[in-house]
């Protein structure tokens, strides 16, 4: 096992779902390294939020980005060096509120990064306000009478945005999540993993998920219809069972590879040639 510890003190609340995710990530990174990915080629990028503290807890290349901007920062890293394997950690608030434009466009262009959305269904680090996936009626500090907005289904959105890999996990199923992360990394193209992550302090959903989450299999992984059916089983309010697993996967060309393909190693820029056209 690779030692991934840092000197940072973990400050998540006891019982927080983020611990399970951290554990799964450690296992997945170890697995990737043991199967031949050099450790120095792995980069984790995080956003701002409780979830994002994960970069402080892993002794591996990382960039602790701005709130909502982890996905584009990650894309920039991949663009610069397509050899790198990129894991992005961000919250539902970051992915679906502040940073939703980047999430959709990264999926659309099939950026070869792996996005892991810690979905605790609220802004936790700012002490509990509703996000785009909070159930209607959530009593957060900004909505003491209950939020008036219906949640959106982020996986449906990802399907509409053409994400080439869509999965859902539960932070308490560590081995399962570990495997999803490995699959996502091995998938060439944009991968989106939503991890249902209870926030025990502001919105304790442990029991809710324990009851509702089940491991699902999409028999035809590249079927949008089948994927959509699974995705729509749960509506992010109270109703429905919650399938976890890979729900959709379909290969297509990657953004960074396409963007890099005309580059010639060590070629000097031909400025003089170009200046001729200016005479």
């Amino acid at each position, binding site marked *: 096992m690779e030692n991934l510890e840092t000197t940072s003190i973990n400050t998540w609340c006891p019982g927080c779902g983020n611990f399970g995710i951290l554990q799964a990530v450690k296992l997945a990174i170890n697995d990737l390294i043991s199967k031949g990915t050099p450790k*120095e080629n792995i980069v984790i990028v995080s956003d701002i939020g409780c979830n994002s503290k994960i970069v402080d807890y892993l002794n591996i290349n990382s960039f602790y980005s701005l709130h909502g901007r982890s996905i584009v920062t990650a894309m*920039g890293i991949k663009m610069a060096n397509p050899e790198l394997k990129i894991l992005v950690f961000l919250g539902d608030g970051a992915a679906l509120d502040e940073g939703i434009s980047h999430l959709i466009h990264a999926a659309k262009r099939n950026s070869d990064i792996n996005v892991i959305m810690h979905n605790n269904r609220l802004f936790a680090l700012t002490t509990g306000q509703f996000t785009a996936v909070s159930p209607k009626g959530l009593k957060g500090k900004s909505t003491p009478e209950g939020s008036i907005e219906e949640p959106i289904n982020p996986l449906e959105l990802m399907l509409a945005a053409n994400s080439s890999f869509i999965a859902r996990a539960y932070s308490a199923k560590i081995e399962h999540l570990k495997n999803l992360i490995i699959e996502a990394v091995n998938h060439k193209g944009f991968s989106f993993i939503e991890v249902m992550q209870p926030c025990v302090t502001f919105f304790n959903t442990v029991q809710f998920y324990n009851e509702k989450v089940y491991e699902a299999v999409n028999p035809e992984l590249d079927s949008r219809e089948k994927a959509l059916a699974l995705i729509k089983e749960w509506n992010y309010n109270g109703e429905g069972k919650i399938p976890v697993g890979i729900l959709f996967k379909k290969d297509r060309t990657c953004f960074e590879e396409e963007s890099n393909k005309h580059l010639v190693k060590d070629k000097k*820029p031909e400025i003089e040639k170009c200046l001729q056209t200016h005479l």
Partner: protein
Amino acid sequence: MKNKKDYSIIIGGAAGQGSRKAGLIIAKLFNNLGYNVFISEDYQSLIKGGHNFSIVRISESQHFSTREKADFLLALDANTIDKHEKYLEEKGCVVFNKDKIKREKGVGIASDTITKELGGLPIMSNTALIAGFSKAMGIEWKVLEDALKKELTKGIEKNLEIAKRAYEETKTVLILERIKANPDPLLTGNEAIALGAVKAGLDIYYAYPMTPATSILHYLAEHEKDFNIITSQLENEIAVINSAIGSAFAGKRSMVGTSGGGFALMTEGISLAAQAETPVLIINSQRSGPATGVPTYSSQADLLFTLNSGHGDFVRFIAAPGDANESCYWSGKLLNLAWKYQTPAILLVDKELSESTFEFDEKVLKEIKKEKASLWSGKGEYMRYADAKNGISPMAFPGNKAVVKGTSYEHDIKGLSVEDSESIILMQEKRLRKFKEMALEVDSLEAVKVYGNKKSKKAIIAWGSTKGVALEVAIKLGLKFIQPLVLQPFPKKQFEKALKGVDKLVLVECSALGQMAKLLNCNGIKVDKEILKYDMRPFTVEELEKKLKNI
């Protein structure tokens, strides 16, 4: 002075009629005849119709400015004559499309008729006009033919046939003689910026289209293979700046370009680059504001915003070139400085500089090379934010056998988040030391230039595209002209030197609030008078001369 050859040609038409291209061809013709050339573009925020015009100034001495009066008017439509005839010199001459415009005076060319008769496309009517204009100016057919061959990529044969006919049908009015031998390349400010950055090792250019920065994107995209770089248009300016920071973190030199509103959206990212100590070069080309303003017109009113862009305590490099040579030099220089000091750097230009066409001195490119940044030695455990004496912690990049931790949080030397007093002070002071080094670096650069009558007690100060006109008028009136090139860190020493013996300082700026005066005030320099223009057009030589005459 006025004895030297110096002509101003206005070429106007509706958007979509090709007046800009016609202007460029004419400029190149005269450039080939040895004239110094400068083109200023005036166009509206529309795609077809309206009124666009180019002012081509050709002269024996070099001038990067326009005159109010025109010697020649090349009119693609009647509107052009209506709008500009009043500015024609007494002896001036109008060359026009006589199929579209009924008038007596001047040189009429039946360009539509010729084009039609010879079976050309409507747009080729411009070729006829250019040819007729050339003949009227006494330009040899050979010179014209060579120029057309170079400039027209489609339907060369037909174009030449049309040109020939128009050339033959037109009478020579006067003969503009050849001056010196070698033409210089003609570059817009934006093209020069692109080349400078490429020469300094640019790897990736990210952008979201926004006038007047867009042509950097277009130019680099066109030459992606020539320059062996990536250009990438993203979903918005926030994506642009943050991707650029990501790429730099991974070791690639990245640049972005935008204007006011887009720049505003980037300011959070600029603060990130400062905290994470990630190099990034931002081209901020000013246009008229506030908000959408007059989006295809120029302004110098984003100076203070740019100088103070981003929250928190940090120093950026900011330079403001005044012509294509300086644009090229400073875009290269700033990219190098961004990497040397791991900091955001901003090249502040404006529409008039970005989109005007200048003669370019190729020697400038020789002064730019990709300068080495401080890199990790590979020994010991890597600490991204090592507490270096000069504040500059050596860089390493992911993939390179080091654990590299970049961050937007305040951090320890490893890059892990901190909240305690001691750790914060340590990192703040590391950065403060770096800012000091940056200031020293500026002292070693030509950060302030002095021109004109260096003994004059009266000096004018102008920056950016206003340099051209200020320089010309200063020389004419025997004044000293001071041009600040580096605006942050402020080149105090060089300013003091430049100001020696000056007892009256006049600012010339295209803004309503005199922003450079505020920057100077902040640094203890008092501006005695402000000559401001805020109709979003550049000063003309006559206009400025009149205002400066009795200071």
